[in-house]
């Protein structure tokens, strides 16, 4: 009896896909309405981000970047979903979700400053509706429910979107955030990027649930599992979730099935300790860039020459952004004191004087 119920639930969360590994449309009716330029822009962003990831890993190894969580493999999941957003939508990213906020408007050199651990990394430009990347896994989920409620109460036609990983779906805040969003029927979209591993722990050890998308059921909200290596499918489900949210039909949980080709972070993680090369090979065949490139080439929208131009542009931009990050002023204790409060309390006024004197020596 209970087993049957589980099967019935699982059947409702089949993987949504538009583009197969060969770059062929397998779900014509779901094809999103994107212009040729928009399709090219999506590919441009994915190629750019792949190069950025490679450069970031290299810069980290040279000691020119600090904390970095690799993104190669997740380009479709990250960029396809961000592409469905309006400029005024709020993003509450996790620590890996830097590409989304850069394409939302965060200057690249600030992303690098954040990686290094510099106050300039979080000094977001006015009007950029983005939270600082969240280190506490799950915190962004409850906060997103609040941002979405705020947008709804202000009467804004915008949504709040947030990202976590497969491991993050085990947190209490993950459930609480979705449940609050459902109870208040707010315009929120929750994306779980299921790259199958939380550091070394495979998703099978997080939960006995066959999909993460079905966890939406506990909150009484929509849940969908999507091929996270298929940029068109990710874009389509995010756009639909956004439309539904703005239509007053409530939040959505989207599970993107994806993979990170690199380590968890650059802080000494070695994926060969917990991942087989067979699994790596299997997911390399699903590379989001490969299949979308095939799709665009078949439509005569993409060439090797064009791709090389983007690769060069990315490398130049990164070089310039690193240079700009290098030129950021050295931080002082007084800078840190200065951003603690609107008005400094007595203890910090006193310490401000102490450190001002120390720094002027």
């Amino acid at each position: 009896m209970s087993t049957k119920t589980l099967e019935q639930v699982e059947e409702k969360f089949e993987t949504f896909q538009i583009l197969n590994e060969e770059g062929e449309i397998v779900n014509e009716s779901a094809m999103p309405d994107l212009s040729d330029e928009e399709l090219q822009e999506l590919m441009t962003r994915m190629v750019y981000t792949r190069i950025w990831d490679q450069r970031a890993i290299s810069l980290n190894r040279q000691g020119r970047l600090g904390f970095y969580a690799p993104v190669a493999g997740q380009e479709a999941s990250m960029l396809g979903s961000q592409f469905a957003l309006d400029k005024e939508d709020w993003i509450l990213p996790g620590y890996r979700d830097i590409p989304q906020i850069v394409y939302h408007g965060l200057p690249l050199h600030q992303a690098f400053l954040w990686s290094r651990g510099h106050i300039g990394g979080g000094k977001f430009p006015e009007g950029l509706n983005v939270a600082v990347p969240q280190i506490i896994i799950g915190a962004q989920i409850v906060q997103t429910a609040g941002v979405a409620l705020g947008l709804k109460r202000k009467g804004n036609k915008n949504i709040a979107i947030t990202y976590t990983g497969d491991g993050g779906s085990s947190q209490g805040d993950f459930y609480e955030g979705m449940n609050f969003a459902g109870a208040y029927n707010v315009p929120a979209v929750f994306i779980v990027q299921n790259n199958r591993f939380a550091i070394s722990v495979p998703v099978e050890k997080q939960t006995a649930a066959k999909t993460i998308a079905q966890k939406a059921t506990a909150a009484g909200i929509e849940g969908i599992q999507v091929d996270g290596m298929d940029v068109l499918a990710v874009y389509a489900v995010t756009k639909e979730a956004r439309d539904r949210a703005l239509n007053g039909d409530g939040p959505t949980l989207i599970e993107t099935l994806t993979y990170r080709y690199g380590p968890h972070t650059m802080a000494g993680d070695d994926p060969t300790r917990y991942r087989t090369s067979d699994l790596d090979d299997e997911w390399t065949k699903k590379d989001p860039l490969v299949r979308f490139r095939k799709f665009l080439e078949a439509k005569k929208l993409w060439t090797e020459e064009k791709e090389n131009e983007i690769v060069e542009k990315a490398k130049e931009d990164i070089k310039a952004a690193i240079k700009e990050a290098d030129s950021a002023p050295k931080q002082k204790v007084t800078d840190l004191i200065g951003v603690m409060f609107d008005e400094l309390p007595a203890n910090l006024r006193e310490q401000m004087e102490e450190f001002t004197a120390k720094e002027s020596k």
Partner: protein
Amino acid sequence: MAQMTMIQAITDAMRNELKTNEDVLVFGEDVGQNGGVFRATEGLQKEFGEDRVFDTPLAESGIGGLAIGLGLTGFRPVMEIQFFGFLFEVMDSVAGQMSRWRYRSGGTQTTPITVRAPFGGGVKTPEMHADSLEGLMAQTPGLKVVIPSTPYDAKGLLISSIRDNDPVVFLEHMKLYRSFRAEVPEEEYTIELGKADIKREGNDVTIVTYGAMVHASLKAAEELEKDGIDVEVIDLMTVSPLDVDTIVASVEKTNRAIVVQEAQKQAGIAANVVAEITERAILSLEAPVLRVTAPDTIYPFASMEDSWLPDHKDIVATVNKVVNF
């Protein structure tokens, strides 16, 4: 002027802020139609509507996240934690998130949240209701921690807390909610955060205290007066940051001090007060600064409260120790 209990003064402060600023939102478990488990939000939903005063699902962490998100979108959230012992469920939102938001965004984003919560012993509550956890909050950079002891202070301090552009933890002692009435102006007024109040002037010994212990200290001071000991009682009102100037000026006058708190000796903020006095006024001291606190056990089973909680007799005994040192 009106005669109000502390809880009425608290409701009055929230009513005033809901009226004067449409971005003020009041929410928590049972604060809406029910008017709060202590009636602190009585009548507010009826007067201001469900969009301004509303119930939440039963999840403290979610409430904290909700407040942060609402703060980021321009609201001024006044969230309630039903009992402060439930802080641990929402510790990340309070101490890991809202306290840091301005800093982590380099001053570009703010979360002007007031966290209201009842706490405190003497009313025989079940487990995890009465614990004094202000020490945990006082150790968190980015938070201010306010604890009123009178209806007048509660109203002025709560209005200031709600208007503060940074997170304030506002702790309401359950025993003081309805224990007495006092004159409270009906119009709005504020009391500056971070400022202590001298509740009784004296020349022989300084008692630095807060919360319910203010009243125990005042009672002790009356008894000590009969023995010719003239006690000054400082009500901190804000336990973080401390009003060091008022404390030090008093100690320089009396040359003797004790610190009185309801929390366990290893908790609370008394050790911090002692350290500040030692650093700044050691040459004025005729005796060490002693502490009156609860013992370092878990908060007592309800029927043990009377013998566990510090009271005026403990305070009298400790003042006598420093006077006769």
